[in-house]
Every structure is written in structure tokens, then in C-alpha cells.
């Protein structure tokens, strides 16, 4: 798809996803996040060795095979890890002690709050595991060089190890080294499973989400050709649209009131959202105490997908629309919709200013969803704020947003 745009899409992946460009709209959290991100990327090298050692029963497989590169790589990881450790502590502090407004908004209670803290705590566990492993290893290399190959000088562990574990019995060190190794790899495996249940999934989905992010003008709402053609035929601009032969067919839904009416990009966005709240912290409605929070829109969409997916997985026949067909998203009903989670008051508060779109570091677009919900409300439900009716009627009847008897050119009479 969009072949001619794939260059631009890859450029976005490079700059925005890999390069964290949009994160730097806020410098301090951007730098802190960068430490965790780069440390995570580089740690994969050490993790590879941990896997190799685990599978083949080796110890520090690469230590005596790549010469000076080994201490260089491990030292780089260690320095980045110290940065990540500090960043994680600062992030916990910002969430729980400083209580930054964007982390304490209404939607950030219960599970989302726990999720945020759990991720940070697990990161600390990972780092404690690695530093215990490396720190004890440095000491063991001197005690038992046959089993513990020389790693060379490690930027952090070569002084932190003796500082923390100096004077320990060799057997204690062996135990601690293994404990660190297991702690790290078990946390990695645990984390990988946990990802699917957590906002932390952004570490994977940020990349496809940025690639597939909307690149057409922000100023263009997606056209609705079915309505355009209907209006064209009403105005006699095209031949009469053939009447639908099936008079019993349900009226089409316009806009969206549930996830199956949304685009897959919207759902991908919902799963990419890591609930940082930058969107809500710049939203004019959120900032002035209105109920709308763009982050909550994304969380509600994701929670609704989860709800429907669980119900489909349950194979409960009650969720079928047509009992003769299989239960899937097309043949699913539970009497609920996104409007059970997102109130009308929320979508009515949006000024379509695009601040949320601009703010998202991974190019999620809450505005498209809000406007789709508005389309459903107005076009399918024929409801909406009463205040809008005079505006609609005026445009329809007099071609102006205000119902006025005057000529549109009257202002020039006064000046000409």
C-alpha cells in the first residue's frame, strides 16, 4: 500500500520511532527515556550471550572470542544501564512523589497506575540482576579463572563488584552470580509475557504504528463518498443512484460507535499507546477541566477490543447475531458500544485543534476517532448538541453559519 509514500514512512520510522524525535518536545523526560531505550537496545547483545550460555552450558561465551570488543561492549551496556537505573528511579519519583498532573488524571487510577509502576520496578529488577551477575563475576574471575574467563575491565562492575561483594565467600559469590543470571533471564521471560497485557507493548508497536501513521494533511477529514454521491444525486450533479433493491437491508452506519467501524490504524494506535498522557496535557479541553482526555479515548478503544476479543474467545453463543454463523467480529453483539465507555460529553468537548496529534511521540491520532464518533452521533443516531442545530439549518438554508436575512455582500456596499 501507498508505495509512493513508503520513503516518507521509512523516514518517520527512522526519525520518530528509532530516533525518538518527537519525544524531544519535552527535553527532560526525553533524555531519561533515551537512556532506558538505548540501554534496552544494547542490552540485547548481552542477552544474546545469556541465551547462548543457558543453552550450551558455557560461561560468558563471547569473553575470550572477541578480544577488546568484549569489555568495550559490556562497559557500554553498563554505563547505559546506570543511566537507565537513574532514569527509572526519576520516573518512579515523577509518578508517585511529584505526582505530575498527566500521571494522576482520572483515567490513571487502578490498573493503568499499577501497570506504569510495575514496568519501572521490573526494569529495576532486570538491572539489579545484571549488576549482581557482573559484579560477582569480576571477583570470581580472580578466584577461579578456569571457570570464569577474564572479561577485561568493566566500566561499572570492576569497581562496583568489589565495593558491594568484596570479602564474600567464594560459594556465596557463585550463588549470587547464578542468582543474578536467573533473576535477569526469568524477568526477561516474564516481561515478554507481560507485554501483551501491558501498555509497555509500545516497545514493539511503536514501530509499525509510526510506519502506518497517517501522512495525509492533518487538515483533511476522510471523505465519505457514499454521502457525497447521495448529495450529488440530490443536486442533480450525477445520475440518480439506483435504489437499493433490498428494502429490508439495515440502514448503513455512518461514522463509528464501536471498534469494527474504526480503521485498523485506530486499533493499532490504541495498542501502541503507552499512556504517557502528553496528548491530554496539551489538550485545551483537558487543560480547562473538561471531561475529554485524548489518552482515555485510546485506552477505551483498546479496552473495548480486549472485551470483545475475550467474549469471542469464550465461544459463548449468546454473543452471536446470527446463530447459524460462527462467532466472529462481524457476527458479534453484546448490546454495548464504545459509547458505554466514552461519553458524549467527552467527544463534544473537542476543538479539533490537533494538539493531541502533534504531541504524540509515536504518531497516534485520537482526533480521527473522536470525529468518527461524532459522525456516528450526528449521522446515524441523529442526535448531538442542540446548539448545533441552528448552525446546521443556517448552512443548509442560507449558506451561512448564521441565519441572517442580509446579503453576503452587504459589507462592501458600506465601503464601495
Amino acid at each position: 500500500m501507498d508505495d509512493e509514500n513508503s520513503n516518507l514512512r521509512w523516514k518517520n520510522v527512522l526519525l520518530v520511532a528509532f530516533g525518538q524525535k518527537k519525544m524531544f518536545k519535552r527535553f527532560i523526560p526525553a533524555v531519561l527515556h533515551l537512556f532506558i531505550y538505548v540501554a534496552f537496545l544494547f542490552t540485547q547483545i548481552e542477552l544474546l550471550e545469556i541465551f547462548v550460555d543457558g543453552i550450551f552450558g558455557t560461561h560468558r561465551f563471547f569473553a575470550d572470542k572477541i578480544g577488546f570488543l568484549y569489555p568495550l561492549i559490556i562497559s557500554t551496556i553498563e554505563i547505559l544501564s546506570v543511566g537507565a537505573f537513574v532514569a527509572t528511579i526519576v520516573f518512579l519519583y515523577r509518578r508517585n512523589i511529584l505526582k505530575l498532573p498527566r500521571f494522576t488524571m482520572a483515567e490513571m487510577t487502578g490498573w493503568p497506575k499499577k501497570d506504569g509502576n510495575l514496568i519501572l520496578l521490573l526494569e529495576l529488577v532486570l538491572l539489579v540482576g545484571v549488576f549482581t551477575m557482573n559484579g560477582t563475576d569480576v571477583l570470581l574471575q580472580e578466584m577461579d579463572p578456569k571457570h570464569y574467563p577474564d572479561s577485561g575491565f568493566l566500566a561499572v562492575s570492576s569497581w562496583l563488584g568489589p565495593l558491594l561483594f568484596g570479602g564474600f565467600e567464594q560459594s556465596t559469590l557463585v550463588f549470587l552470580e547464578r542468582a543474578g543470571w536467573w533473576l535477569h533471564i526469568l524477568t526477561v521471560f516474564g516481561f515478554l509475557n507481560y507485554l501483551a497485557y501491558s501498555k509497555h507493548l509500545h516497545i514493539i508497536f511503536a514501530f509499525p504504528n509510526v510506519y502506518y501513521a497517517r501522512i495525509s494533511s492533518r487538515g483533511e477529514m476522510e471523505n465519505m463518498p457514499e454521502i457525497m454521491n447521495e448529495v450529488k444525486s440530490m443536486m442533480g450533479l450525477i445520475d440518480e443512484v439506483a435504489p437499493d433493491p433490498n428494502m429490508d437491508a439495515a440502514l448503513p452506519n455512518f461514522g463509528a460507535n464501536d471498534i469494527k467501524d474504526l480503521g485498523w490504524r485506530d486499533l493499532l494506535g490504541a495498542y501502541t499507546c503507552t499512556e504517557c498522557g502528553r496528548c491530554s496535557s496539551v489538550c485545551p479541553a483537558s487543560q480547562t477541566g473538561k471531561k475529554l482526555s485524548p489518552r482515555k479515548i485510546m485506552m477505551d478503544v483498546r479496552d473495548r477490543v480486549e472485551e470483545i476479543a475475550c467474549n469471542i474467545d469464550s465461544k459463548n453463543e449468546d454473543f452471536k447475531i446470527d446463530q447459524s454463523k460462527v462467532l466472529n467480529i462481524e457476527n458479534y453483539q453484546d448490546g454495548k458500544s464504545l459509547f458505554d465507555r466514552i461519553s458524549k460529553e467527552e467527544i463534544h468537548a473537542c476543538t479539533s485543534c490537533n494538539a493531541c496529534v502533534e504531541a504524540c511521540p509515536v504518531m497516534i491520532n485520537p482526533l480521527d476517532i473522536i470525529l468518527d464518533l461524532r459522525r456516528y452521533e450526528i449521522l446515524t443516531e441523529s442526535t448531538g448538541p442542540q446548539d448545533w442545530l441552528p448552525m446546521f439549518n443556517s448552512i443548509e438554508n442560507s449558506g451561512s453559519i448564521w441565519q441572517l436575512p442580509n446579503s453576503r455582500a452587504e459589507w462592501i456596499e458600506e465601503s464601495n
Partner: protein
Amino acid sequence: MDELNIPLYADVIASGKKPDVLFWVGCAGSYDARAQKVSKSFAQILNKAKINFAILGDEESCTGDPARRAGNEFIFQMSALQNIEVLNGYEVTKIVTACPHCFNTLKNEYPALGGKYEVIHHTTFIHQLFEEGKIAVEGGAFKGKRITYHDSCYLGRVNGIFEVPRKLLAQLDVELVEMKRCKSNGLCCGAGGAQMFKEDEPGDKRINIDRIEEALETGSSVVASNCPFCLTMLTDGVKAKEKQSDVDVYDISELIIQSIK
């Protein structure tokens, strides 16, 4: 004010000529008393630069932007398709408008409906006039004056035009003081997305009050804007803060017309 010459498109065509550019006035520019002044200022600039332009008058309808953003695609399509009929009928190629909502819809949304034109916001157009030497600054009515500039969402964040209006203000030798939330981080005035036409949802504060407080913090005596709806919201904000005697809200074209020959 000098005598203005604002021809109707139909009259120009009837006389066998063709305007070079259509001035799209918009609903606010046509009917709102405050925005009419902006329309006149801009028309005066066009006159001074001897631009061959015309307006549609009663042949112009709302672009449909507020209906579309409220969710009413039917009303949008009706208004938009009617406009496109008129514009294509006259074979219009170039449109200038003083409203960023009209600008955005004409530029970004009409092509999908069959209306493709070169669409320019009036700030960009005025900037071009300076570049081409068709107008020049004289007198310096605002020289050294402390001015802050409010980015409208649909010119700024949505269409990426941040620098041109600032360049215009720089031409006037004003002391431009930025608000904390400016350019791509600019705060909405509160009117967009059809909010202009309804009561606010319950909250702690009106958005325009939040914005004007930020503008007042800069200590500016003028808030410059580029949108008739921002103009209304910001002016209301100044009134609510009872600062009418200290602070004026102007469209950029109004500052220009007071500063050129």
C-alpha cells in the same frame, strides 16, 4: 479610509474580464461586524497593491467546515458541492482567504470532492505582496510596540504556517514576545471543532480565558491573530479580564494596513 473597490466576480466576468484571484470572504468576514473590518482591511491592501481580484458575494456559501467537524457530513457535502459548482463554473484557479478554516477546507478537503485550486491564506498573500514590492512599510505605527502573536490551529499546527505571519510582524518593527505555548504547541482559542456554536462542556475554565491570560502575561498591548474566530474568542477573553483599555486584539492585516503607504 480610502475609497474601496471590491468588485463582484459575476460583474467582472460579465464585463468580459477575469479576476486573477478570488477573495473568499467567508461567513465571519461577510457577516460578523468585527470580521468585516478585517475583510475591509485586506481588500484595502489588495487595492493598494493593485490586485485584480473579486469576491463571490451571494454566490459564496459556507465552506462547510463547522458542519463537517461537528460530524454532519450531509450538510458539509451540500455546502461544499454547491461552492465547487460555482468555483468550477467560473474556472477559478486561485483563492485567497482571511479565514484559516475556509483556507484549510478549500485547500485540503475540496480536492477529494472535485474542487482543486491554489488556495492561499491572506497572511501568505500579504507577505508575497511585500516580497514583490507591491506594498511597502511606511510610518511605523507599531514600531517598537510589544505584540504577541496567537497561532490559529488551522493555519499553524494543521497547515504548518508559523513563520510567515511572524515575518509580517517583523516587517513592522514590533517587539514580538512569544507566549509560552506557541507555534506547534500553541493553545487553541476554544472556537474550533464547531465549539464556536455551542455552550462549553462543563469544566473549570473557558479555553479563551486560559489563552488570554497567557497573552496578558507577555505584557503586550496588542494580540495579533489571523482568524476571525480567534479574534472573537480572544476579544471576549480581554473583555472578561477587563483589559479592553490596555490590550487590543487585531488581525495581522489590520496592523499592516495601518503601516503601509
